[in-house]
């Protein structure tokens, strides 16, 4: 329990590096248990330690408040988005200008891309956006039927060309169609791929570079371990390398928060290095299970 960590330190005058060292070791372990990746746990611990050393402790018990505040500040620094996460407003802005807004969902296998896409479709539709879904996972068995079933439930149009087609071509055709049909927003689903699969990463970069979508959302799981950072880095790197305009991911969707209890560390791991904002989180398997990340909730879960 992070809250109790500093109790034995309290009483001294000024906190020294040596004094807080064992406490910082405990903090690091707590962060690791909460599923923060090792390098991020190290960095956060260091930043908390730096902010504590030299601070005065007057009363017994105040020390634990200090560490809480220092950790909360560090977490807030990491999680506070550096760009707008208001997707709806961006779509509405485009609509006002008579433009079709497009979002591509990318990520490794099975993380919840297609489900999150359907949740976003539901969310936008609730706000009177005319949505279309494009099936660019032309590889995985049942991927097209999965989206067809969602499109039917949501009563939105599905654009698909079946399997084994070049996904970049399908996306392009769908954008042309959407423009003619005056759709407000196109949600493009892609096949899951491992970050180190060069062939598939090139295929994805081609889809992005040919179609220049307004938003590229990387979908990851809150369940992900140390691999999450590597996934995000490699997706960014591949996009930057193979897209002529060097663009990268615009934001993240983190799914399956309903399966992790208080092990919320992936939120820190995934945002620490790139600073890419978490646009949505997934908290279940229903259309309504799409939320905005609450920084407070993350801080509270870390203190649990």
């Amino acid at each position: 329990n992070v809250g109790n960590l500093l109790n034995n330190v309290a009483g001294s005058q000024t906190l020294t590096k040596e004094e807080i060292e064992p406490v910082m070791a405990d903090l690091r372990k707590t962060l690791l248990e909460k599923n923060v990746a090792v390098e991020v746990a190290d960095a956060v611990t260091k930043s908390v330690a730096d902010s504590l050393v030299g601070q005065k402790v007057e009363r017994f018990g105040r020390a634990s408040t200090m560490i809480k505040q220092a950790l909360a500040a560090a977490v807030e620094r990491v999680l506070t988005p550096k760009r707008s996460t208001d997707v709806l407003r961006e779509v509405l802005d485009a609509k006002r200008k008579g433009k079709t807004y497009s979002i591509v969902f990318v990520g490794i296998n099975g993380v919840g891309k297609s489900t999150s896409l359907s949740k976003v479709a539901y969310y936008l539709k609730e706000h009177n956006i005319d949505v279309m879904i494009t099936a660019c996972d032309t590889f995985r068995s049942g991927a097209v039927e999965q989206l067809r079933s969602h499109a039917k439930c949501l009563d939105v149009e599905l654009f698909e060309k079946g399997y084994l087609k070049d996904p970049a071509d399908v996306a392009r055709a769908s954008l042309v169609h959407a423009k003619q049909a005056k759709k407000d927003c196109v949600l493009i689903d892609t096949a899951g791929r491992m970050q180190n699969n060069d062939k598939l990463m090139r295929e994805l970069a081609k889809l992005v570079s040919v179609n220049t979508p307004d938003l590229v959302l990387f979908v990851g799981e809150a369940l992900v371990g140390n691999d999450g950072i590597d996934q995000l880095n490699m997706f960014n790197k591949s996009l930057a390398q193979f897209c002529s305009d060097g663009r990268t991911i615009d934001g993240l969707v983190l799914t399956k928060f309903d399966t992790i209890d208080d092990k919320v560390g992936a939120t820190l791991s995934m945002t620490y290095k790139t600073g890419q904002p978490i646009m949505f989180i997934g908290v279940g398997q229903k259309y309504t299970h799409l939320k905005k990340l609450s920084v407070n909730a993350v801080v509270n879960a870390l203190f649990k």
Partner: protein
Amino acid sequence: MVLQELGGKLTAALQKMQSVTVISEEVLDKMLKDIAAALLEADVNVRVVGQLRKAIKTRAALEEEVAGANRRKLIQRAVVDELVNIVDPGVTPHEVKKGKPNVIMFVGLQGAGKTTTIAKFANYYQRKGFKCCMVCADTFRAGAYDQLKQNATKLRCPFYGSYTEADPVAIAAEGVAQFRKEKYEVIIVDTSGRHRQEAALFEEMQEIRVAIEPDNVVFVLDATQGQAVHEQATSFHEAIDIGSVVVTKLDGHAKGGGALSAVAATGAPILFLGSGEHFDDFEPFVARSFVSRLLGMGDMSTLVKQ
């Protein structure tokens, strides 16, 4: 697979010990610290790492009077043994037998790779000459039946399912009963993804099990996942007697430590590893050789063999 990277770190930690003449408490602690760091980076559960550290230390203390090179060997062996213990609970997994129905039920978290693994499993046993078939008891996920159907069709494997029946227990029971009657040998049952936080989903899983009386329940685990899978695996194990484990997505960069510690939680042996999206990306798991690969091997092989 980047298991080698973890292996490299572990080997380096062990080699550091090699280069000093006396293995003091300090040297031992440093080595244990290095090993713990490598395992944590590979997502091995924090508590499992703690236990491993303690176990090695206890063994090293027991052999304290042993001197020099022998002590080094003993400590190295302790490291290897404890790692093997994580991945090999020492239980013989269920073996599929010819000439009788073997009902295998697959369970796991959402998106772990169950439906894909089922196709690989069918492909594997079809090639060995077994009469295989699949039952789709996932009535929840959009497109689940189509996914299984398309895979089965590619494999020319008979399948059972329904677009209209919403009760997975009924489908599982009917499908398995029919295939038992038709004398199929490997009857594979796919189920929806589920998690421990939703009790109704676990009850459904238990009902399916009661209805089909599987010979083996296979828990499918995703290698990319971190600290939370330990609790999930424990809860699955408590809710349904897990017979074996398949670890998927090892073709990525993930080291699979989260999954490996989940194995420690279930006490069930790993049967196969999944390393891609194609039906052939599937290999039987051998604990000892897995650890030797984990360690990058070399001079460790003699230790692992024993």
